[in-house]
């Protein structure tokens, strides 16, 4: 289907996709996902890490079909429109490390940029601090970009390499079907399932999967990216991706109003804490890491679906990061930051600064 103009990549296309996601995400919440968490790439990858036993925080263990859908929906779109390009080789270990700290930062704030947008649209005032932090972190990233930072060229590779993450996602789906959730049981076969807490709150499997596939498809076509939205405005005063991000927020706000999911305030917000400084700094670390890695966590999943092995490595870094975040007490909770969350954020900034300042491979 190459040659057909990509309507989703145009100015109205990206707004349309933002509107679609802004409708679907609050609906996922209505259908069972946790509060202000219709979609959260970081939280959901953390839940997957839990389901696999990479951490044992029993309130956040569930294989989120939305994540599976994002990758496979993107894969379908890429194949349909001949954009599946298996590639890798652009500083993979660096991307893995960036993924680890992007997840740690997100778990300090309790959300990725997608969730920050949805929290704002749900009336969670703490998300304001998060979004400000996100903007700050991305701004720092742009300073490195302007200074010549880049991770080097990627290379075309064998189709098999491009299929690894999609196959991993298919594997997760098969595990869910093989070891389905049993009401009241914390484990089914090899998989962990939360019986209480956010991990126990989820829309039906098929609903999550289908919505994920749809979003994956639309996001691949439109190149939707919540980090790029802010980065392109800061760097180039470009509003293209930002218009899609704003459309998402505004639409989700309206839909939340209609569904009775808008509850303004700072205290008592679902899966949120009120430590303003750490909401800001957690998202700042995340934003910086996403900027250095070239995409928000959603975008990394969509790229992985297109065969991008570098993005796939970043995704694995995030899942690994979630595992250690909960094992080491780095993740926040409703009461505030975790026991080692603050030093983890400091280390994260140091590592990202190191990467940003020194990775200047001459690609001219």
């Amino acid at each position, binding site marked *: 289907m190459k040659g057909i103009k*990509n309507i989703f*990549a145009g100015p109205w296309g990206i707004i349309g996709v933002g509107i679609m996601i802004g409708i679907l995400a609050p609906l996922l919440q209505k259908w069972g996902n946790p509060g202000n968490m219709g979609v959260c790439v970081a939280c959901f990858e953390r839940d997957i890490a839990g389901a696999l036993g990479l951490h044992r925080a029993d309130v956040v263990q569930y294989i989120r079909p939305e994540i599976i859908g994002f990758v496979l929906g993107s894969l379908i779109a890429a194949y349909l429109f001949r954009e599946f*390009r298996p590639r890798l080789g652009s500083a993979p270990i660096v991307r893995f490390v960036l993924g680890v700290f992007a997840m740690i930062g997100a778990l300090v704030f309790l959300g990725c940029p997608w969730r920050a947008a949805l929290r704002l649209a749900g009336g969670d005032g703490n998300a304001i601090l998060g979004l400000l932090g996100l903007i700050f972190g991305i701004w720092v990233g742009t300073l490195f*970009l302007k200074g010549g930072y880049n991770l080097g060229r990627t290379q075309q590779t064998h189709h098999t390499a491009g299929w690894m993450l999609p196959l991993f996602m298919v594997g997760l789906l098969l595990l869910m079907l093989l070891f389905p959730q049993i009401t009241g049981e914390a484990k089914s076969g090899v998989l962990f399932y939360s019986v209480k807490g956010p991990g126990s709150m989820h829309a039906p499997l098929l609903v999550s999967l289908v919505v994920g596939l749809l979003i994956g498809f639309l996001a691949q076509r439109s*190149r939707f990216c919540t980090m790029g939205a802010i980065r392109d405005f800061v760097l*180039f005063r*470009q509003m293209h991706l930002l218009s899609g991000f704003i459309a998402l927020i505004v639409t989700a706000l309206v839909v939340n109003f209609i569904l009775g999911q808008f509850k303004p305030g700072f205290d008592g917000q679902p899966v949120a804490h009120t430590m303003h400084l750490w909401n800001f700094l957690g998202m700042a670390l995340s934003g910086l890491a996403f900027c250095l890695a070239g995409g928000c966590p959603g975008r990394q999943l969509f790229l992985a679906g297109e065969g991008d092995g570098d993005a796939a490595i970043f995704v694995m870094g995030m899942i690994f990061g979630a595992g250690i975040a909960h094992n080491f007490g780095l993740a926040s909770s409703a009461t505030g930051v975790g026991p080692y969350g603050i030093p983890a954020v400091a280390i994260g900034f140091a590592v990202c600064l190191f990467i940003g300042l020194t990775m200047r491979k001459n690609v001219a």
Partner: protein
Amino acid sequence: MAKTIDARGLSCPQPVLMTLEEIKAGRADEILVMVDNDASKENVSRAATSRGWKVADIRETDGVYNVMIRKD
């Protein structure tokens, strides 16, 4: 005078950064930007038109897009 930018294999925002840098440098009134994926092709085209340049031609050979932009 034409300049060539090889942005193949570079992930966003590199192709746009390189293109806008060259536009700002003002050394050429015609720039050929080589990218190898559709998103970069779209981004470079959008960046060029945002600076008042024209996308004169896009030619694809073996998965590489040669995006020719011209000062308007």
